[in-house]
């Protein structure tokens, strides 16, 4: 899967856990319900772990678990649903989440810049061929009225 991370097209070495299949040894992205049910095992595995949440997920449902995750993937059900933007911004700005925040689902190249402006540092486009276009869209503006939340 092609990924745009920190303004570069890179290879993705994370795996989404598919229902009924076994976990990979490392770099699994699991759903919130899987995490809740298998918390103890996942923590004891001591491997980099990612969490997949929907854009409208209540942050309080996983805020206390943030230290366990090397990645949060926020899924957009449609490109017009802007809830994921507020979730990412809040994760960065108020919870100071320092690791990767990835946008997945229905995201368009024309949205790449706004996504990175609210705290996403990784964009996973459904269509690999659109990655170069999305990348070029990141430089469309050189000035902004709003600040960008930093992970630090």
């Amino acid at each position, binding site marked *: 899967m092609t990924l745009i991370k920190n303004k570069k097209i890179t290879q993705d070495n994370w795996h989404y856990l598919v229902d009924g299949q076994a976990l990979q040894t490392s770099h699994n992205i699991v759903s919130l319900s899987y995490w809740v049910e298998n918390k103890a095992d996942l923590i004891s595995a001591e491997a980099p772990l990612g969490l997949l949440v929907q854009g409208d997920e209540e942050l309080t449902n996983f805020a206390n678990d943030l230290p366990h995750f090397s990645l949060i993937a926020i899924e957009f059900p449609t490109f017009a649903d802007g809830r994921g933007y507020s979730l990412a911004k809040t994760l960065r700005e108020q919870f100071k989440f320092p690791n990767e925040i990835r946008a997945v689902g229905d995201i368009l190249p024309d949205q790449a810049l706004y996504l990175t402006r609210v705290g996403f540092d990784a964009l996973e486009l459904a269509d690999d061929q659109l990655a170069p276009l999305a990348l070029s869209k990141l430089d469309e*503006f050189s000035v*902004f009225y709003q600040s960008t939340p930093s992970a630090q």
Partner: protein
Amino acid sequence: MYLYNEFDQTLVNERVEQFRDQTARFLNGDLTEEQFRPLRLMNGLYIQTHAPMLRINIPYGLLSSKQLRMFAHISHKYDKDYGHFTTRQNMQFNWPELERVPDILADLASVQMHSIQSSGNCIRNTTSDPLAGVCADEIEDPRPYCEIIRQWSTLHPEFSYLPRKFKIAVSGSPKDRAATQVHDIGLHLKKGANGEIGFEVLVGGGLGRTPVIGQTINAFIAEKDLLSYLEAILRVYNRFGRRDNKYKARIKILVRETGLDKFKEQVESEWASIRHGDLTLSNEEIQRVKNFFTPLNYETSTNDALEQHLANSGLFRQWFKQNTIEHKQTGYRVVFLSLKSPNRAPGDVTNVQMEQIANMADQYSFGQIRTTHDQNLALTDVKTSDLYALWQQLEKQELATANIGTITDMICCPGLDFCSLANASSIDIAQGITDRFTDNAIDTGSISLKMSGCMNGCGHHSIGEIGILGVDKKGEQWYQLTLGGSDSHQSKLGDRLGKAIAKDLVVDAIDDIVQVYKSNRNDNENFANTLQRIGLQPFKDKVYDAH
């Protein structure tokens, strides 16, 4: 007025190039209509009945003569030699070609204008009092704060895919001339106990299918907290506003379903987390923007010439009385240019008129023009000694119809003639009312009449003293009347008069309503007070018994 620096200019220039690329990709087939839609809407471009419609922001209703000349140029070069001023301080062109819109945006950028977020589910143009800075009752000039909000909301990355559109209006006077109570957020400038500047914040107002008057969510926030408070409201709305039904997606529904108290709790908890962060406005930043709105260089002038002209000309006297109002500076008046002449649709203005208004603004009013919520224009700083000469020029351009505040000074949406949402036409009804009342509009007194061609309510019918709403009944155009609405400092929704009325009887029904008012009013009693005193019934009896 505010002037762009290099930063502001770069942003609008880059926006033009972005849209040029998006338009080209759409025309090549690389973007689907569905994907292009939010992108074009966020540049004010609708697809209407006949052609695209381009809506351009006039931030807080303030235009320079140079900008107005650019509108004239655009209407001539890309459109059909006219434009339309809306109730929310926008200019609309009804006939541009999609392929040429990027060029129009480039022309606009050359005079520090844009159409960014004039449509779409994002934060729209911030509107304000057309008399900002010149009215005697002002607590504080709202324009610097509007400009601060304009910058904060422009290309806001987090709030560009909201559940629905979002409108903010700011008023600096106790008398509300910006319809702030029917906005998603209404801001009223206030002074605290020690003279410090702040805002009363109203939330959840709006017109459309479910008209609601906004409620106070916070009685006073300090000016430095303005943006963090707005951001807190927007974030709560973006997270929790309904997305399952576009007719229930405005913030007014969220506030109603959540309850004001709980909604306030959510907002203020969010605010507490971000309040002292980088959105806090420094005194320096506020002052930097305020410096663009310092008082104009007024001269002392006498009223001698004015008095003489008033004594000599009845027509001038009538216009002076109806279309000009007091200015805070002695020797100056505010002049309204009526865009409700008998010969044009409400709010429409030709390219020649725009050129001439720009010239008049340069000659008589510091080169600035304001647009009003009532779809008129104002030259706000005219010396009383210049009024007669200005009136003569306005007369020649059909801009001196002495009807400001009367029944023929109506608010009216473009209706079925242009709009793909409309159920019924508005412009021909407006024409019928104008024809019926033009000769006795002043005698009829102050009546606000507002008309929309569908329940989306762009013509603000819900808050008209007389409201007219076009509805579709089995393919026929019918009209629902309401009485007693208000957009003053105590906004109020009108009450339904009764069942809808057939198109050919609407003007007669309005005439009946006016006759009931005139035969019942005491002395100079206005329409609203007469209605309140005698109730709806006499109006009902007259309208429905007659037809």
